[in-house]
């Protein structure tokens, strides 16, 4: 074989070896491509994601308001009237309650949030309003609520009001409740 032929064989042989290694080079190339474009669902920067969330948080004041339904004789009031919070973090607040009557009573608190477009962004992980409270005569308690205001809270809202109205539901046993619900459905 002439020299030109030998050169061709060498060149082609080198190409074969180069392409073999190129197939392995595809592995890091693929990873870099996925990292740059952020596709494929691979987690590359998990250690930075918490900082990212903390930066987003901002200061918001939360006011607590309590009120009694007209026939409710209990004392019901927030432990703190106002609380400074940072969005994206969990906080605990408490409400003081005392049964001032001489009989066992059951109460149910119903929450309300203002302004209304903040309601979707106030998330209650735990709340006394999720269940009923039964207190013996003269008994008192601190009712907890654990909440978070999400980072998506609209920018113009700097003040959120969380109010609870407490109802006397002692006479509403399960049968009465069922009866009431049926009446509601009728109308």
């Amino acid at each position: 074989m002439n020299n030109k032929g030998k050169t061709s064989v060498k060149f082609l042989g080198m190409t074969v070896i180069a392409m073999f290694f190129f197939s392995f080079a595809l592995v890091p190339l693929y990873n870099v491509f996925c990292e740059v474009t952020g596709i494929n669902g691979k987690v590359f920067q998990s250690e930075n994601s918490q900082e990212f969330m903390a930066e987003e948080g901002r200061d918001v004041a939360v006011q607590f308001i309590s009120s009694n339904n007209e026939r409710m004789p209990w004392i019901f009031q927030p432990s703190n009237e106002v609380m400074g919070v940072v969005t994206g973090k969990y906080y605990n607040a408490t409400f003081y309650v005392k049964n001032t009557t001489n009989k066992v009573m059951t109460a149910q608190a119903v929450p309300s949030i203002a302004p209304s477009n903040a309601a979707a962004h106030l998330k209650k992980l735990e709340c006394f309003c999720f269940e009923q409270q039964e207190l013996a005569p003269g008994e008192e308690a601190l009712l907890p609520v654990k909440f978070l205001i999400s980072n998506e809270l609209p920018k113009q809202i700097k003040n959120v009001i969380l109010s609870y109205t407490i109802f006397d539901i002692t006479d509403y046993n399960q049968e009465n409740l069922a009866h009431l619900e049926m009446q509601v459905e009728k109308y």
Partner: protein
Amino acid sequence: MSAVIENHHDDHHHGPAKGLTRWLYTTNHKDIGTLYLWFSFAMFLIGGAMAMIIRAELFQPGMQIVEPEFYNQMITLHGLIMIFGGVMPAFVGLANWLVPMMIGAPDMALPRMNNLSFWILPFAFFILLSSLFMEGGAPNFGWTFYAPLSTTYAPPSVTFFIFSVHIMGASSIMGAINVIVTIMNMRAPGMDLMKMPLFVWSWLITAYLLIAVMPVLAGAVTMMLMDIHFGTSFFNAAGGGDPVLFQHIFWFFGHPEVYIMILPAFGIVSHIIETFSRKQLFGYSSMVWAMLSIAILSFVVWAHHMFTVGMPLAAELFFMWATMLIAVPTGVKVFNWIATMFRGSITFETPMLFACAFVVLFTLGGFSGLMLAITPADFQYHDTYFVVAHFHYVLVPGAIFSIMAAVYYWIPKWSGNMYDERLGKLHFWLSFIGVNVTFFPQHFIGLAGMPRRYPDYALQFADWNMVSTVGAFLFGISQVFFLFIVIKTVMGGKKATDQVWEGARGLEWTVASPAPYHTFGTPPKVD
């Protein structure tokens, strides 16, 4: 001293050695071409028998003949054997026989490597087929061997599969190097690149594709081997790898691979249409440029095989448009073939019948390929029988019809005998009807939602599956008939003239029929 040299010189002009060692030790391009062609025929029949098992199982809904596990092994081996054992060695065999004769060279540039590249192939397929008898059975993950099916969930025989793919790849790479070195260095004086016969051009481009992508296939199976045995996690998500990466690497090899299986067919069909139209080929240089464009584009379209893996929109758009761009050079080729036939003095001998069927049916397969290239539509077609219909249309009446056309066209030159024209035509019509009855209904059941690679199917697909199976057995039996025709021609028949065909051009028709053991000891002059 001079006497020794003369003796050596005399040996050179002797015919082939006698007995089995002629075939074992041969470095003659014609012998090796013959070996490749017979080997690929054997593999074609084995892979075909597997297709018959598949179609027999699908004749009716429900499980009748084989177990689902065995069915999976059949579809896997059918694909691997037809691609790596049938189509590719057949084209390498044709290149061995024809390229030196077409460019006026005495032999291939690297005859010993030529011997090696053939003789490792039977071992590769022996290893692959022996896995059928191993514990856990043969590979069952489909010819595309997607990870983790082929790694985490593979049968133990996967290691033998990997080794056999390595050997097949080495064989293809050696064959490709040989073809390139032969074409680049051994052309007869006066044969410029743009005067080369189109089959030679098509093989030059094919060989470069092989050089570029077979090492990538070797890399992919090596990574599998390392994942399975050496604790790496290239494709294992639990270890930080990515199974989708496998699909990218595989199809980076796989898409050029499908052009490796069709470009030589383009060359063959160009010669045959030219000869039987008794006209010069229309648009020779555009044919060359079209093949080059197809080859280059084949490297940037691979992800159209995996539109549904969850790629970003920009990537889906890119791969969709790049894929559709390939229709342009392919359209140029189809146009040129038709323009060559236009107002030609056409006769329809068997090679021409196969070539005409190639043009029509390959184009049909190309059209269904265009449908699959449309990303949003592909979400519906992906992994259905529509895909099966598409690639069988481009591979069976595409690549395989071109190989049959080539055998009928050149066998008078190889054997010195004319084949029986009546039998050849009968074989063509049986194959033509068989292939269409088999694969055309698969478009319908695919569009209706029948998934591929399942041994059973819902009742509404029953009728067309039955039709498809009938066609498959017709096609299968007609290939046994083809074997008979080839053997009959080799054994004897009407003697062929040197030119064989009235309109044939090219250096291979200037030598005697059958072609002497050594041709072009002194290079011919080409103007």
